């Protein structure tokens, strides 16, 4: 039991450290290192999942079924990733007007035949009314056109996938003369299915842990005073206000086409709520470290814990909503973009704070506060550091 516990949390720590290191190495080598696609990286995740689940069962987590469900959901997400890694096909398809294409080249340079031929009929750049600001890119494609049959039409645009027998096509780029279009192609029905099941289970378990009596948040609330609860509510409202402000700022200027999706507001808003609550926890943490009276310090810890679960669940929800959006707009739900990696790092680091039952040190208020202050460095890295140091797909403003 002890060994399994040590193994579990060591593995979690090791994977988190590995992610941090990998994001730096990939930046330095210009993503040439290929860490994320390597067999040993996948093995590290697999070990973490297996050891983690074993530990969960050994601790008889089935007595807290929703907590167990949450862990199983995370394992399912990893299983989905493995299936995608092994059986998923990703590639690019370049279409020129008047030239039908019946196959595409995968990232591994394999030629894959498509069930039907595709022919680009039209490509168009759409603008905001009365401006030349690009709003969307739209390819109109004939599917299965023959000499005497026009086939069916498929329209693909940003955040709007084209589908054909398990193949998914995404608007990715276009030719400078506007007579050609580049589509990302993905064929991964099982991987996406398993992964989405994992997301669904995760969202469900998080929701239930937040609202069910006798579960996660309610349990924390039970041990808190009325004043603390009022404070928590007030801080929650402030966090949402800040999130709305941030989201409204995003919409204040024209957005690039890929961002024009209702996912944007939800993805960013929910993550900003998480970050704001975690920032409040830092303030509480600093206060908790500064003040002398142990009981006050403990009360601050209770307040901090009340905010921690909604914060972390918002962060997880934000990350995986982002993954669903990425699957809609870029054709893959996880791309190891530096921002994605560091959001995941943040989530994993804060996950330690939840495991006070297994990690008694984090039950001590001083240690807990110190941890919360240090953990916030990962939020700062994700929010600011990635854009400045690592770049990537999420560096829209810079």
């Amino acid at each position, binding site marked *: 039991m002890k060994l399994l516990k040590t193994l579990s949390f060591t593995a979690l720590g090791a994977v988190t450290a590995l992610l941090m290191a990998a994001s730096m190495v990939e930046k330095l080598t210009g993503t040439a290192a290929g860490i994320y696609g390597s067999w040993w990286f996948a093995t590290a995740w697999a070990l973490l999942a297996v050891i983690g689940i074993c530990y969960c069962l050994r601790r008889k987590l089935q007595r807290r079924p929703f907590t167990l469900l949450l862990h199983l959901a995370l394992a399912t997400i990893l299983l989905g990733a493995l299936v995608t890694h092994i059986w998923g096909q990703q590639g690019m398809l370049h279409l020129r007007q008047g030239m039908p294409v019946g196959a595409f080249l995968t990232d591994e340079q394999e030629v894959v035949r498509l069930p039907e031929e595709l022919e680009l009929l039209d490509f168009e750049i759409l603008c905001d*009314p009365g401006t030349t600001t690009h709003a969307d890119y739209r390819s109109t494609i004939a599917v299965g056109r023959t000499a005497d049959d026009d086939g069916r039409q498929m329209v693909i645009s940003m955040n709007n996938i084209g589908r054909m027998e398990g193949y998914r096509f995404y608007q990715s780029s276009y030719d400078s003369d506007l007579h050609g279009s580049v589509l990302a192609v993905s064929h991964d029905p099982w991987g996406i299915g398993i992964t989405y099941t994992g997301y669904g289970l995760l969202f469900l378990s998080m929701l239930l842990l937040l609202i069910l009596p006798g579960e996660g948040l309610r349990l924390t609330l039970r041990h808190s005073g009325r004043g603390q609860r009022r404070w928590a509510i007030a801080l929650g409202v402030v966090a949402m206000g800040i*999130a709305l402000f941030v989201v409204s700022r995003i919409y204040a200027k024209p957005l690039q086409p890929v961002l024009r999706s209702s996912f944007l507001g939800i993805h960013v808003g929910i993550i900003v709520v998480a970050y704001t609550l975690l920032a409040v926890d830092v303030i509480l943490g600093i206060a908790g470290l500064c003040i002398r009276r142990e009981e006050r310090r403990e009360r601050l810890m209770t307040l901090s814990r009340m905010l921690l679960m909604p914060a972390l669940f918002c962060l997880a929800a934000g990350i995986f909503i982002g993954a669903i959006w990425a699957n809609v707009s870029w054709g893959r739900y996880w791309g190891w973009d530096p921002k994605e990696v560091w959001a995941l790092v943040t989530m994993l680091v804060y996950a330690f704070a939840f495991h006070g039952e297994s990690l008694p040190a984090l039950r001590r208020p001083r240690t807990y506060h110190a941890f919360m202050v240090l953990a916030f460095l990962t939020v700062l890295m994700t929010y600011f550091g990635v854009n400045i140091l690592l770049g990537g797909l999420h560096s829209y403003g810079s």
Partner: protein
Amino acid sequence: MSKRYINILLPLLALTVLTACDDETSPISPDLDPTIAEQYYTGGQLGTSFITSSKAFEQPTPAVEQGGLFLAFNRGEKLFEKPFTANTMGGEREGLGPLYVRSSCLHCHPGYGHGKSQPDGSFNTVDVGNGYLLVVYNPENDAYVSWLAGMPQSHAVAPFKDPLDEQKITLRWHEFTDQWGNRFPDGETYSLRYPEVTIPREAVYVIRQGYEDATTTNYEVRLESTLGIYGTGLLDAIPDDSIVAQYDREYADGLMTNGFNFYKDGQYVGPYSNARQGDGTPYVRRFTYALSRGPLLDAAGANAIWNITNVTRSDRRYHYLDLNGKIYATYASKDPEVQAGFGDYIGRYTTAAEHPEFFGPDVEQNIYNYLTSQDLPVEMSDDDYADLMVWHRGLAVPAARRIDDPRIQHGREVFTQIGCAYCHRPSWTTGDDRVQDPNRFKVVDTQSKDYGRELATMMPRYPNQKIWPYTDMVQHKLFMKNDLRTGWCRTTALWGRGLHQLCTGSPYADRLHDCRARNVIEAIMWHATNQGGISDAEYSVNRFRQLSKEDRDAVVEFIDAI
């Protein structure tokens, strides 16, 4: 508490998202000053499209839809966009050759707009986007050389040989420094470049075959880019007498020191007429840089669909090979390689029963008869031609962008104050638009449902519209390095040009007749480099130079917004 969290958060976020994505708003506010609001309607109420996308130049006018001409417009659009196939192939859009300039209209009119500048190197007309026509002329008298066509054919259907070997033609861009050292008084700099095209003698088929005359050792080459097609129907609807009145006014003002082409001593002279297809009625000239054409139904498009592709139609049952009409025919008919392949070619083209003169015992004579024939089979049906012209006259002008923005209105004021608006005349009002056709084209195909109908009666019309093309429809001289043939250039309509890069994907704004200007500033500064004369735009360019940077930028923004 957390439940409340989610309950409040999600609807609020959803609301933010929904309000932010409301893109149905019209760009014109109902409260807008009507004198500004009308400037949005560049093509008037009947000729403006409000679609802003890379297809902004490809939209039908409201007049097309009101006239129930939408199907004809769509069919015409296909003829414009799709490639033609060789005249020996059979099938849809057949008839290309024996010689041709490009295989589709879109090749020269990317996105239906102005052509795109081409990079240094050999002259490539196979890819879409090169809208350059080669202008080959005698520098002694500015006349086109007789051994090529005015729009020189460079491709041929086998066994015929390309009249010009494009691989041997080179395009070079040269830097240019103007009299001000490419610098504004406030220190801001710009750069200028101009193209130089070289066609060596060995690139010309008939010269290789032995043809010589006074011009085969003394010719100059220039580039002329295609103009946008959108809005030409509206320019066609400007009454002839309004255009003459514009000449009268400019003549009376006496500001144009270089005088006028087609206008002498207070009289409009040298009108356009067509006595070959039509009855020789005179019309005011209005189309092409050279003002070589009058009304639209016999202007560049009506002609190009025949002479760029050499697709014959009922009123043009002959081919366009060179200006002389016989030089290419003579040399091709003597070419043993052409002779060797001609029998096979002509057998796929027609039959001995229909054209015994192409199947005689003397193959040289057969080829000559074919190339100079005046009664070739009709390749484009009257219906197709009518559809094409409905499409041509039915292309809308894109609405102006952000014209009510105070900066852009300020740019407009400065544009007027410094005199740009004198030649780039902002607006015109169309007349009754009784469509004129110097060709007198009539549907003679007895199979057609429109048999006997005049083409002019089938067109979309734009009566009494206030339009904003920003041209005076008059030619002026700018005196540029490597200027146009003759130096006369009709003031280009500026409407829609700000959308060129969006609609063609070009890296540059490609302004001026040979796309030499990469942006508006360069275009303006080319207006008064005064190479060999004083430009008609000298005064305005001088004033433009003296403007503050802010005012210059406002003028540029205005020009891009119209």
